[in-house]
């Protein structure tokens, strides 16, 4: 196991240490006292485990491909942004734009997520044990968003094929978002996914609403001008 202490060192040095440890064959890396620094553990392209023993700042675990990264406290903006694959776990809360534009992998947030969770996702899964803020799922193209608590306003706005599940209240649906009855496959997937990543988060007998795109914005139709006026 490699141990990296952040101390007063620059992010560039800490990230270089992480890369060096990986190159030396370490598969288990602990980074101590991250102090909410930005850009920690970006572009890790190997199936290693990295644990940050505090809070991290912006863009942690961005551009990942394959690692398992755990953050003991909270994360700032753009957590795991554009991740290709891997598993990113935050024990605390996440700032704006968590899991934005991910293409694969899983982001697990044990606390709350702020605004713009999982916007423009192109694959992968993001799971939130608590609540999420404003405009989650905006323009989501693929993948799944699961929020066990409440979701903020403009939820699932202007989506393509991202599928959302909400255990709590929806403050307001975004343009073209509709509630759909979950299929048996949906229920099975949700059970398995929550059991694997957030076994404590689901309340007993809690049902989830399924929210998807109504597909009204996928093609322009002059007869639906009213919908467009609202969307734009």
């Amino acid at each position, binding site marked *: 196991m490699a141990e990296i202490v952040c101390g007063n060192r620059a992010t560039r040095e800490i990230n270089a240490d992480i890369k060096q440890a990986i190159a030396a064959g370490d598969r288990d890396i602990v980074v101590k006292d991250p*102090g*909410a620094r930005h850009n920690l553990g970006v572009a890790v392209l190997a199936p290693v485990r990295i644990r940050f023993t505090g809070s991290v*700042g912006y863009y942690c675990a961005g551009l990942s491909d394959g690692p398992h990264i755990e953050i003991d406290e*909270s994360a700032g903006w753009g957590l795991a942004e554009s991740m290709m694959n891997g598993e990113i776990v935050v024990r605390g*809360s996440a700032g704006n734009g968590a899991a934005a534009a991910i293409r694969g992998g899983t982001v697990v947030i044990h606390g709350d997520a*702020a*605004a713009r969770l999982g916007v423009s996702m192109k694959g992968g899964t993001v799971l939130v044990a608590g609540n999420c803020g*404003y*405009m989650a799922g905006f323009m989501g193209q693929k993948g799944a968003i699961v929020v066990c608590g409440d979701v*903020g306003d403009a939820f699932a706005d202007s989506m393509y094929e991202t599928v959302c599940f909400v255990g709590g209240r929806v403050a307001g649906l975004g343009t073209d978002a509709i509630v759909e009855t979950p299929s048996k496959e949906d229920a099975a997937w949700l059970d398995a996914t929550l059991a694997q990543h957030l076994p404590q988060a689901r309340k007993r007998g809690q049902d989830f609403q399924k929210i998807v795109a109504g597909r009204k914005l996928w093609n322009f139709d002059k007869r639906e001008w009213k919908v467009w006026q609202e969307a734009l």
Partner: protein
Amino acid sequence: MCGIVGFFAKDGGGQAEIGQTIVGMLRALGCRGPDSAGVALYGAPDDGRFAVRVKLGDAGDLESRAHRIISRLESFSGVSHFSTIGAYARFLVSGDTDLKQLTNAIESLDKDVEVVSLGHSLEIVKQTGSPDNLEKTYCVSRMKGTHGIGHTRLSTESRVDLSHSQPFWSHGYPDLAIVHNGHITNYHQLRRRYEQHGVRFYTENDSEVVAIYLAQQISKGASLQEAFERMLRDLDGSYSCLAATERELGFVKDTFALKPLVMTETDKFVAVATEEIAIRAALPGQYSVREAQVREVRVWRR
């Protein structure tokens, strides 16, 4: 960019290390705003008197300016503890002073003379440059008190000088100060409306209108909480904004959550900052930090 910070001590009996905490937080956000740094610190009130801080000018013979201010203050009662440090003069004046008369007497001296802060417990110190330089010039970390706010500025649309730096005191309204990160996009419209009603703007910084807006709402009887809620309706653009009064600290986040702001609350303190790095740098210990939500308004009061 810009960085904003706020700290509210729940204990310490008015003797918390406010200066040290706010400067410590600001240092961590120095890279978000290299143009200027400033603090608004709330000390223990001085038996009903007002503490006044005056910017003596942008350049020239500041000492002779100070002498001219002293002579103009002769017609006011209870003036004491006059001192000068850096670009500022500071003095105390009796609590029943006509504030309009006082500011007119001082500011009519020249157009670059400005009452930067006035209040029972408010002390604003700001200048161009880094938080380190602010500390070097004014030793702000020595100040003890109850709460405070701070700002590091990256100027986007207006001049870089002391007057355009933040925090802004709400001219005419004792003890109310604000810091703002963002843009107020209907600034010109609001400014025109206020100027038609005789309100003076001291700068071309859009953040100044936040201080004026909040002062107007509070003067009409709104609480700080209500004033922030009205601000969400009346001020357009992106903003994370902190405001403080003699007894309160609060924040508002805009209707699109476009600007960052994180907060933590323990049984000993409340800390709010643009980035968590500022809170972690200044405050050791175990606590959790979360991002403020869209349209969130919070006010803490002692």
